[in-house]
């Protein structure tokens, strides 16, 4: 009996009153998952990431979303936002806040969206991420029940971020969830979507999420994935993006937590003028393992991509970066830049990095590079001679390393959270937002 089969068997028979087409989709997912099996280190895409902890785990699906305000407050961010909250994959109406949605914007749990509008949603979901992408997307299709559906109408500008929280509780026994996120950004719309994965201390659950983001002509989407799972949580995610003409997608893939984390990020630039920006930061310690696989497909001429991933690794943590850019035939006049830099804070930390370019066109501007280094001890000394204690000196220099990525973050709450995780509590914001204001005021005076 294969590990994949055994994994599904352990879950037992599920009694659902779902429509037959949904049940059929599940069955297809399950069949595909069993056929593919869990990836092993023999699979090139999983060479450095061992998923046995998932394959051998015993997980059940949660059936409640109980989480009181205090526990939620300890996990969530104080963002002034449209908020959807899921607890171990189950939607919590009590913790969500969907009041005052702007015209032309709909934000719903997947089950509601399917019930009220199953033709539009059922057709879109899975279009970018079907069962063939990886065993985990197949598993997601087999088991997914809930998720977030965001639809932004043509020309709508959503001022507040759309904040989707996936909370992982410290349960008595391990849970798993297979959420979906679907973002449909209409032509010339503008929005910010935050996926936040937060785990309670002691949580040891498995999250397997699939996100799809579709940008129509001229749409602008800032997409944040902030992953702060617990040090025992297992987390697998894939994010699939499709971009129409003149659209702009900016991804922030910020990984701070989790025991075993794998994220795949794939963008198809399908029409002229589409541009995508990948900003990544991972900060791992202890025995954490974080694997980022990114792919940009330049399927059309005059498309642009820029990728900058920074890894900070301490203790015996392990990181993987695999970034691939593919320029299709006849995709002329494209620009594609890719950079991965890693900082090792310990001798026993390890990073495997592989930037890849596949170019089948001749009029392109591409560059890629990867570097790995350590903190500059001379700089540590120099800061300490100014009275800054060693811990803070190291924190500042570590944060400085992440600076290029952090400078792009447009939500201060998220920037502060990352700063604190990386550098500990600093006397003030690293970008000195308050000082800039004072300075400007003095300038005018």
């Amino acid at each position: 009996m294969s590990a994949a089969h055994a994994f599904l068997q352990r879950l037992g028979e599920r009694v659902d009153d779902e429509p037959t087409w949904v049940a059929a989709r599940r069955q297809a997912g399950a069949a595909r998952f069993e056929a593919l099996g869990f990836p092993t280190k023999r699979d090139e895409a999983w060479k450095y990431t061992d998923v046995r902890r998932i394959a051998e785990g015993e997980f059940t699906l949660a059936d409640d979303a109980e989480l009181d305000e205090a526990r939620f407050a300890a996990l969530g961010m104080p963002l002034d936002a449209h908020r959807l909250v899921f607890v171990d994959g189950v939607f919590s109406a009590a913790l969500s806040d969907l009041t005052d949605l702007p015209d032309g914007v709909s934000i719903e749990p997947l089950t509601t969206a399917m019930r009220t509008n199953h033709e539009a949603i059922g057709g879109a979901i899975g279009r970018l991420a079907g069962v063939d992408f990886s065993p985990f997307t197949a598993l997601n299709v087999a088991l997914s029940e809930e998720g977030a559906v965001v639809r932004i109408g043509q020309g709508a500008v959503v001022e507040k971020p759309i904040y989707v929280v996936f909370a992982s509780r410290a349960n008595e026994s391990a849970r798993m969830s297979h959420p979906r996120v679907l973002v449909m950004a209409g032509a010339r719309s503008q929005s910010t979507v935050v996926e936040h994965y937060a785990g309670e201390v002691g949580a040891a659950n498995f999250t397997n999420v699939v996100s799809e983001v579709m940008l129509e002509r001229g749409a602008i989407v800032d997409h944040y994935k902030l992953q702060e799972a617990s040090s025992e949580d297992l987390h697998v995610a894939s994010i699939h993006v499709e971009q129409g003409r003149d659209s702009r997608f900016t991804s922030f893939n910020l990984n701070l937590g989790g025991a075993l984390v794998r994220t795949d990020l794939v963008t198809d630039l399908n029409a002229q003028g589409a541009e995508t920006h990948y900003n990544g930061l991972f900060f791992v310690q202890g025995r954490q393992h974080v694997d980022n696989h990114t792919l940009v497909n330049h399927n059309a001429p005059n498309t642009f991509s820029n990728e900058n991933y920074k890894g900070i690794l301490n203790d015996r943590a392990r990181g993987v970066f695999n970034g691939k850019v593919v320029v299709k035939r006849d995709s002329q006049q494209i620009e594609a830049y890719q950079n991965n830099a890693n900082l090792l804070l310990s001798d026993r930390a390890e990073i495997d990095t592989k930037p890849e370019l596949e170019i089948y066109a001749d009029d392109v501007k591409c560059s890629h590079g990867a570097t790995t280094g350590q903190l500059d001890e001379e700089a540590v000394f120099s800061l300490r001679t100014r009275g800054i204690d060693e811990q803070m000196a190291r924190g500042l220099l570590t944060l400085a390393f992440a600076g290029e990525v952090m400078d792009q973050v447009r939500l201060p709450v998220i920037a502060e959270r990352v700063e604190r995780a990386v550098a500990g509590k600093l006397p003030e914001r690293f970008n000195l937002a308050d000082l800039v204001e004072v300075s400007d005021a003095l300038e005018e005076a």
Partner: protein
Amino acid sequence: MLEVKDLHVTVEGSEILKGLNLTVNPGEVHALMGPNGAGKSTLSAVIAGKDGYEVTSGEVLFEGKNLLEMEIEERALAGILLGFQYPVEIPGVKNIYLLKAALNAQRVARGEEEIPAPEFMKLVREQLSFMKMDGSFLQRAVNEGFSGGEKKRNEILQMLVLQPKLAMLDEIDSGLDIDAMKVVAEGINSLRNADRAILMVTHYERLLEHIVPDRVHVLVDGRIVKSGDKNLANELEARGYEWVLEESAA
């Protein structure tokens, strides 16, 4: 303020300082001169607490306290500031951030409140214009892409903001053209007062035309072999170090 007593220091197995004695009192400006390899920079590195310098015997007291047992940052908080010969570039850390973090570390160590932002900006801007540096310096990463002269000015700017009790300047004049030298010297002179001591390590007498020392010491082969007033520097300039060596050997 600073007492160095019979200090012996070894670097990578070889003895660099061989029984150095030096006393610096508040209000005094001392110049430590000497040929290359005499151990001038070693002394300031040991006082600042740099790794790789092994003190085999002797002691260093700062205001009566054993300096060698203090952490690097504790020495800074006690009031010692080293101006580097080759200031380190710190990409990603803005000058303004360093200045504020360092100043606040001092204030917190003294049990004071952190400096309010407007007061801080006013202070920094004043010192900036005194050092003939423009405001853009503050937003630039510490020393990154700075010319040699800019780096040295930046060291003095830090001194002006942090107001140490003992300012040590390691070859602050190296690589400066005459205009930059004047600005740097003016900055250092403005630091002079009855409570503060300044210890300058230098190769050349030229700096001492701009900053007139109270005491001049000649360091040769790990020991101070001759001390005198400012005239000693002139004599060294005119006659070199040979005569001092001969005199001390005799």
